[in-house]
């Protein structure tokens, strides 16, 4: 306890030096916390966007449909979706089921053409799984045959407004060109870039006719009540509907995206680690200075009968106090910045423009604070400072009291 008191007083003999060292640590740690908050937020938004607009919790395909990302074959479709939907509805964890037709199409405004992903959606059941109807920001949801919904960004790029006329050009399941005219009935804003920028949505029957699918659909989408039991629901439904179909969870369908996310996390962590290493060098420096300028003091202590152990303890405690102080400061800053990001969101479009980052979120990221990570980061900061202060301290213990006392 006395040693702690001694260490505490030693730390504040040089207030400015202590503050500078501590703030170096705090910068590193707050960067780690902020990057963690951002990544969590981005992951959460991406997951929500995928579930709420793109796939639901699970998707059912005809066996062999899902081969690779970006390929939407019309030769392996679910020909009779009704019976499957009825089966799936019987599962107790299923909250909603809907069917969709997804296909590649070009959207033409008479002058320009853009490749898009087109969806035929069941206007009665789509809201059981998805939030398309709730994301209509202008105009109205699908009603008539020639109604089409487009994203606000696509509308801006192609110069469309409510009531605009557009042509959707695609090929049916046999490879024959088909083209239909539509009127924009509503604009959607989902924060999912695919739907805001690259997708058009029409009524299911219209899409089926356009592609010559009869009653066939490309996918059946399922929302569950309890997503913690998604894996067991997936097993049950796979068994329920038989071997002609395949069931994928939203995570399986987006494995590539979360792989990217893992890499981003790692790279951000590495950057924060570098900052922390620089901060650690600062601590080593501070501790070295403390040891060097206090060599006569150490000699005195040793001459008075202090054991090496106690001296090590004292210096380690000094390092620890600076570390704890810096870490606390870092956590406070980190949390404050994270809170701002979590509440206000951070608009990256100023830095990157409206570019596609291969991640299903918009450039405004709302952070998601994880307090367990913050606790870990705090401990990490303290442990690192203690570890790096051991090296200078070893120098102090090697001194002979006589030499130390003579040291100028």
């Amino acid at each position, binding site marked *: 306890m006395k040693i702690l008191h001694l260490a505490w007083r030693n730390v504040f003999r040089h207030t400015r030096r202590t503050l500078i060292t501590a703030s170096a640590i705090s910068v590193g740690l707050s960067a780690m916390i902020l990057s963690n908050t951002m990544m969590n937020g981005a992951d959460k938004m991406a997951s929500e966007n995928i579930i709420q607009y793109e796939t639901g919790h699970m998707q059912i395909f005809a066996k062999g449909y899902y081969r690779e990302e970006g390929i939407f074959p019309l030769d392996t479709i679910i020909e009779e979706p009704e019976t499957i939907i009825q089966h799936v509805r019987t599962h107790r964890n299923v909250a909603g089921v809907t069917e969709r037709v997804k296909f590649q199409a070009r959207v033409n405004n*008479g*002058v320009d*053409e853009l*490749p898009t992903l087109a969806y035929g959606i069941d206007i009665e059941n789509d809201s059981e799984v998805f939030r398309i109807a709730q994301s209509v920001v202008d105009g109205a949801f699908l009603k008539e045959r020639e109604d089409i919904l487009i994203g606000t960004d696509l509308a801006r790029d192609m110069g469309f407004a409510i009531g605009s006329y557009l042509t959707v*050009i695609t090929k049916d399941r046999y*490879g*024959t*060109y*088909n083209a239909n005219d539509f009127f924009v009935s509503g604009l959607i804003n989902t924060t999912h870039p695919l739907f805001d920028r690259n997708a058009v949505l029409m009524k299911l029957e219209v899409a089926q006719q356009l592609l010559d699918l009869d009653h066939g659909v490309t996918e059946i989408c399922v929302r569950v009540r309890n997503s913690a039991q998604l894996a067991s629901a997936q097993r049950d439904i796979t068994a329920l509907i038989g071997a002609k179909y395949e069931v994928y969870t939203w995570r399986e369908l987006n494995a590539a995206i979360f792989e990217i996310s893992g890499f981003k996390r790692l790279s951000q962590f590495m950057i924060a680690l570098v900052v922390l290493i620089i901060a650690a060098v600062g601590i080593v420096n501070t501790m070295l200075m403390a040891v060097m300028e206090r060599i006569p003091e150490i000699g005195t202590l040793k001459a008075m009968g202090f054991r090496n152990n106690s001296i090590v303890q004292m210096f380690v405690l000094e390092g620890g106090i600076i570390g704890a102080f810096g870490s606390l400061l870092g956590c406070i800053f980190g949390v404050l910045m994270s809170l701002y990001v979590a509440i206000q969101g951070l608009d990256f479009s100023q830095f990157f423009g409206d570019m596609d980052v291969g991640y299903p979120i918009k450039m405004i990221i709302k952070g998601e604070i994880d307090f367990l990570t913050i606790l870990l980061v705090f401990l990490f900061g303290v442990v690192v400072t203690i570890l790096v202060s051991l090296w200078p301290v070893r120098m102090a213990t090697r001194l002979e009291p006589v030499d130390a006392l003579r040291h100028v």
Partner: protein
Amino acid sequence: MKKVTILLILVGMLVSQSVEDILKRVDNNTVVTTAQYKATMIISLAGKVREKTFFGYTEGKDRAYMEFTAPARDHGTRILKRGDEIWIYLPSVEKATKIAGHMLRQSMMGSDFSYEDVAENRKLEELYDAENLGIDTIDNRPCYKLRLTAKVAEVTYALRVVWIDIDEYIALKTELYAKSGKLMKEVMVGEFQNIGGRNYPTRMEMINKLRQNTYTELILDDVRLDITIPDRIFTKAHLERQ
């Protein structure tokens, strides 16, 4: 009255026979076993005109090879079609990439031709039922006007209306329709030459009817038909050669 009916039926039979005959003779002119050519493509998009040149080989409906020579930006770009697969080689990438199914529909090198328009070399007779819509003229040349309705499912255009020169049996004008009946493209043949007994189009214009102010003109030179083309031309090794 009875006589008139019989006459009408007879005439109808004659006409329907000749419709198939017309189509057969058109196919005989344009569906070649092999072709070798040099081509100039003039692409006009919203008032801007660009010119691209390439040479190519075609064999049947499954094999085609093209290599661009100008402008400098496209020099060395090569395209290979084998069956349903299309490969494109960009000199900057130095490796051939496969063009996936949906991209076949996209325009070739910014033109109004899609990759499949260029590669299509199938007999109209096998794909379509023909109906005679009478005699019409294109550039003062009398033509049979035929409506071709797809009789097989796997066809690029469900409906075509063609104007076929009465004497030369070549489609001077073709309208290409989507299944919904919407007019998508119009092909005008401006010049044709008699090459080895076939009337083969050497100057044609493709107009994208869904976009304003765009058309592509294709001019063929040094066309040689029904020659033997070495197999190695249609290999990936040839596509990727240095």
